């Protein structure tokens, strides 16, 4: 369960980016944060993921499964992020991209990769150069890569905004289904009302 309590973010000495934010997302659910661009949605995700630049200040609490995240390094938090672009590693094959995040202790990595590929309808494409994939394939690989890392929560940073209309609903359904299957809380920031309609979690409107 991911919980935000009276969360506020300020840049340097400036006033807070948004009013104090409260949100609670259960496992398998996709929570929604809506708002126009520039309001600080990505900064919010950075704060949760632990990637915030050093001159930002955070007030309030972020809790994952009941424990505070303050001061933890990104890799200790184990919170996955799916970006607007798939950001596949250009120097690795599709299969190597998928296995990059699989925790070290897990043995049957190859099987997991193959399974994820066939789930994404991309069976046998493990050795492909990611630069040769279609946009939809890249988006699916990015999601599967994020999930294979066994995160405790997933942050979705407008992951569908660059896809065309038909592909967008496909990938959205694919993503929500896999989040539900993984049983982890996910937070989606978007400015697309359709994303909000499709999700079955708490929704917050972020405004200045």
């Amino acid at each position: 369960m991911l919980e935000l309590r009276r969360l506020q973010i300020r840049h340097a000495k400036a006033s807070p980016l948004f009013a104090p934010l409260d949100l609670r997302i259960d496992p398998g659910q996709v929570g929604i944060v809506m708002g126009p661009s520039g309001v600080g949605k990505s900064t919010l995700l950075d704060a949760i993921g632990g990637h915030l630049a050093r001159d930002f200040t955070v007030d309030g609490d972020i809790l994952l499964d009941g424990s505070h995240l303050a001061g933890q390094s990104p890799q200790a938090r184990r919170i996955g992020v799916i970006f607007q672009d798939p950001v596949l590693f250009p120097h690795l094959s599709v299969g190597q991209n998928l296995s990059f995040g699989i925790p070290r202790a897990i043995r049957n990595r190859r099987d997991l990769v193959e399974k994820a590929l066939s789930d994404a309808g991309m069976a046998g494409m493990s050795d492909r150069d990611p630069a040769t994939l279609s946009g939809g394939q890249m988006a699916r690989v990015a999601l599967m890569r994020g999930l294979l890392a066994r995160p405790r929560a997933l942050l979705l940073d407008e992951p569908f905004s660059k896809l065309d209309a038909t592909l967008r609903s496909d990938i959205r359904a694919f993503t929500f289904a896999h989040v539900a299957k993984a049983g982890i809380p996910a937070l989606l920031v978007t400015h697309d009302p359709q994303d909000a309609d499709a999700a079955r979690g708490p929704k917050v409107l972020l405004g200045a």
Partner: protein
Amino acid sequence: MGRAIYQVTPPATDRRLARIVLAAVLLLILLPILAGVWQTLRAAAGWMPAIGATDAGLGAFRELLAIPGLARATLVSLWTGVATTLLSLALAAACCIRWHDRGWPLRVLAPVLAAPHAALAIGLGFLIAPSGWLARTAAPLAGWDRPPDIGTLNDPFGLALILGLTAKEFPFLLLMMLAALKQIPLSRHLRSARALGLPEAHIWLTLIAPQLWPLIRLPVLVVLAYSLSVVDVAMILGPANPPTLAVMLTRLYGDPDLMRLLPASAGSLLQLALVILAGAGVMGLQRAIRRHGPHWVAQGNRLPGLTVAMRIAAICGGAMLAMTLASLAVLAVWSVTWRWSFPDILPKALSWRFWARAGQIAGGPLMTTLIVALISAALALAAAIAWLEAEDRRAAPRAPWAEALIYLPLLLPQIAFLYGLNIAALGAGLPQGVALVTWGHAIFVFPYVMIALSDPWRALDPRLPRAAAALGAGPWRILWRVKLPVLLVPVLTASAIGVAVSVAQYLPTLFLGAGRVGTLTTEAVTLSSGSDRRITGVVASLQALLPILTYGLAFALPAIVFRNRRAMRAGR
């Protein structure tokens, strides 16, 4: 639950690591320089108990001033250094304006940038000597049956030296300019200024140059310091009687009369003062232009003939590049010559015998060169990566003083601290030989590796490390599995540059190697004062070939490793 307020900062361990890295790198570079300068200062003040000099005072300076030709040597150094810098800057600017949107110059520049100064200077000497390739080509037309008695080489005004230095320095500045152009919104400026109907050369001078200058100022100062104090090229091409100050001092350091070490050290301080003076001149010029330039431009002034001058300079730049490539070619021709008398345009008899004996002639120096170059480049590369990674983890931009410190070894004349460093190293009980030479090389290799790697490192897509961190990768794994592989091309390029810089070093090998360490460069410089062009041709060709091959490897390796990775090749 109370409100938790916290500042997001990198973990303390990372910050401590970063500080240690920065301190260690600075210590490895700063310490030897400071120790060297200190020993030089002591000797210049007449204090060198080892040779019985315990009479502190200004005696060393008086002795220095009494050396015949000192004034002229100093003036010639100043003239050749300043002229080289201005000429290189002008040619580089003109070529930059003409070629900035084309790809081929970089491919032509690569061998010129890779080839060591000494090899180029030797080749240029073979080209422009009164009996050189150019004169041989002209002989049938001019009706010469013996070479003209004209001082085209080692001329008292240092023109050959200026030519040889410019041939090597202007491509360096051109490369730095082309790299700096990427950091400014060039096409936007060009479009809007062209829309106003301004001539191209005027746009560059008044609009682009002011933005470019801060980005290339340090490289220009490096060229200035280098040209003012170069030894190997000046020995090969420079005036002889008197030579340039740096050559005069190098000879003085080697004088059989050991008390001459004192005036030599005093002269090193004079050389240092010369470099500081010239650098201050550049900064003063910058200030004057900053103060009066905008006003001058605002009044609608134009430099008459600028367009024509720029076009001529660009042609000169192209000719200079062609001449440089011809210099490398003539080295190769001499290396396979048996007899080649004036005025034959090509050798009368060819022979492979000198290449067949290359192992015997230069096998040892070749191995030493390789070992020193590979280790010093690896050391410098490791230090540069550590530095850049530490900057990433501190998540703070580089301070200006740190930038200046990185450049420091290139901004000081080598002769000002290398002999002192030798004394300091001996005094500290450090073993002389390959290890000390390698360290010495690394001091000069590091800045170039930093120059080559910093921009690509900062230009790395920041989403890649973020995506990796989101997948649970720690900083070390991100470094090894994401940053370094993605940056493989710039890392290899920086390594190749490091190897090339090490291969080209002369004075550090000479002074720190106790003469036991002979590299291709010291060998080539020694041979250039011998009588056998063919053997000189073999050694200088080898010396030029080594860095060129390294560059080739740096280009070829990623193409092989990433033959199935389209995004790793496109646009790089």
